[in-house]
């Protein structure tokens, strides 16, 4: 998630609005049309400020909660319902020993040993909610972990996903 897209839109719409204001200054404009335009512009300004406030609040809260995910001391991976990784936080990348580009879009089961597939695959179906597994890691020794999973909505509207907490076994 980046702030650049809404900021760019805000800047562009502001430029168009300024162009309308400039046109309002042209003497040749019919007085009635001019008055109508001024009222429309005033209405637009109110709506604009509301939307701008909404965007600012969303960006602030998004950053806060996205930071809580990205910088959580715990390792988290978010997958779709089929178990394909959509997001991995920094602690998870460290644990899995992979770069974000390598991890995202791969099946989570790629990171567990075949012997643990019988633990992980039922978890994709929602039961059980926790279980032990061994992580297969790039350039590092296998690691015994405890996996736990819960449902989470993905960023796309109406699409469900799974949130996996991966903790080294005690």
């Amino acid at each position: 998630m980046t702030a650049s897209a809404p900021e760019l839109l805000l800047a562009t719409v502001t430029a168009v609005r300024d162009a309308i204001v400039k046109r309002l200054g042209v003497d040749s404009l019919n007085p009635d049309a001019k008055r109508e335009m001024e009222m429309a512009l005033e209405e637009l300004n109110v709506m604009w400020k509301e939307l701008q406030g909404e965007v600012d609040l969303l960006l602030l809260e998004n950053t806060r909660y996205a930071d809580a995910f990205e910088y959580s001391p715990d390792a988290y991976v978010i997958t779709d319902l089929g178990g394909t990784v959509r997001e991995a936080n920094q602690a998870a990348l460290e644990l899995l020993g992979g770069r974000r580009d390598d991890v995202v879009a791969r099946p989570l089961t790629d990171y567990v040993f075949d012997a643990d597939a019988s633990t992980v695959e039922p978890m994709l179906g929602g039961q059980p909610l926790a279980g032990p597994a061994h992580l297969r890691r790039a350039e590092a020794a296998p690691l015994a972990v405890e996996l736990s999973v819960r449902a989470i909505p993905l960023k796309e509207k109406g699409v469900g996903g799974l949130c996996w907490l991966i903790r080294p076994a005690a």
Partner: protein
Amino acid sequence: MAAELDDLKGMWLDLKARVDQLAEERRHYLEFFEQSAEAYVVTDAQGTIVDANGAAVDVLQRRRRLLAGTPIAALVALERRTEFRSRLQRLVAREPGAPRRFSTVFEAPELRTEVGVSLRLIDREGVVSGVCWLLQPVQ
């Protein structure tokens, strides 16, 4: 003028679509934070609480609305407070060997809780803007 208005309308729709997308993203990350069974607190780099999830509110035993803006060190038992502040300062200063896990005691009226603390710096391109804390009551 009509052309500008058409442009404006198109951009307005784009912006609304982007706002809707932001709202979905917010819902996604809010759900992650708020529905977690683990106790997480987000502070700024000085340790002032920005937000705490429901599980953290249970651990800290304080009203949520009173937590935001409170230095997390102020919730630590008095005799452990100096040590706690020192640990946070060392970590934020990236002092070599500064532990990212330690234990402390949080104190609320009529309740003291020993808690294992893990933390991670919110670090964007070398600038520490905050800290994410995991609080685990010691059984």
